[in-house]
């Protein structure tokens, strides 16, 4: 991915020199031309087309934002509830992510999603222990996190 971005920036700068207009606009025109070139030559460039990956990163951010707003609303609703009828608990989430920064990212996302807070990571990085505010069904919580976050993170990093 990094090499594709460098190529694209180089093409953009080259375009500025070729057209001899050193403005932001011509830089962006060059950027788009470079994007097109990389797209048509993607068979010869290693790794997948970086705009796809960029799109996935943006998608991950949007998921994150949506979950943050949802979780804040649910926590506020609980804070004003006259009677606390919740069932908190700690459950273990088995994870497939390997590298430590993926796990850190997942832990962060979990902490900001509705009703969950990452408490600890197992020593062999195979599980994350999560404290849940209201835990009627463990399996449902596990599949929800796996379906949304772990998948989105894997799309970005693999």
């Amino acid at each position, binding site marked *: 991915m990094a090499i594709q971005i460098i190529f694209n920036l180089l093409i953009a700068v080259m375009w500025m020199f070729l057209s001899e207009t050193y403005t932001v606009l011509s830089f962006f025109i060059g950027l788009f031309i470079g994007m097109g070139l990389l797209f048509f030559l993607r068979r010869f460039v290693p790794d997948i087309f970086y705009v796809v990956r960029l799109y996935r990163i943006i998608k991950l951010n949007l998921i994150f934002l949506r979950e943050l707003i949802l979780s804040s609303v649910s926590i506020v609703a*609980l804070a004003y509830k006259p009677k606390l009828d919740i069932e908190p608990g700690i459950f273990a989430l088995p994870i497939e992510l390997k590298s430590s920064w993926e796990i850190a990212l997942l832990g962060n996302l979990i902490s900001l999603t509705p009703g969950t807070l990452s408490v600890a990571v197992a020593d062999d990085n195979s599980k994350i222990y999560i404290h849940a505010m209201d835990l009627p069904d463990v399996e449902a919580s596990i599949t929800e996190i796996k379906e949304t976050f772990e998948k989105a993170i894997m799309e970005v990093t693999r």
Partner: protein
Amino acid sequence: MIDIIISLLLLLGTFFILSGSLGILRFPDVYTRLHAATKAATLGVAGVLLGSFLYLLFDQGIVSGKLLLGIVFVLITAPISGHMISRAAYNSGVELWDKTKRDHLKNESK
């Protein structure tokens, strides 16, 4: 028009911070309190910072990158501090609330 958006953002932000503080006071144990501290407060601070960013942008004509960076840093650091505090609490033996149903972490070696 933009005034309304700015005021709405500031009011919502302060509302979330206030509710978060209320949650910290009301919830029974340290883990549930951390839920309130990490989530509601994060969104509240982000709302206030975004509101002040828009105010500076449209009223004073200043693009304040610091405010946007502030949002990013709060988003990154709040869950980490929540994680660290809860882990430290668990490892030093802070009790869970009586009504807690499950504790899968109990039998694991730490």
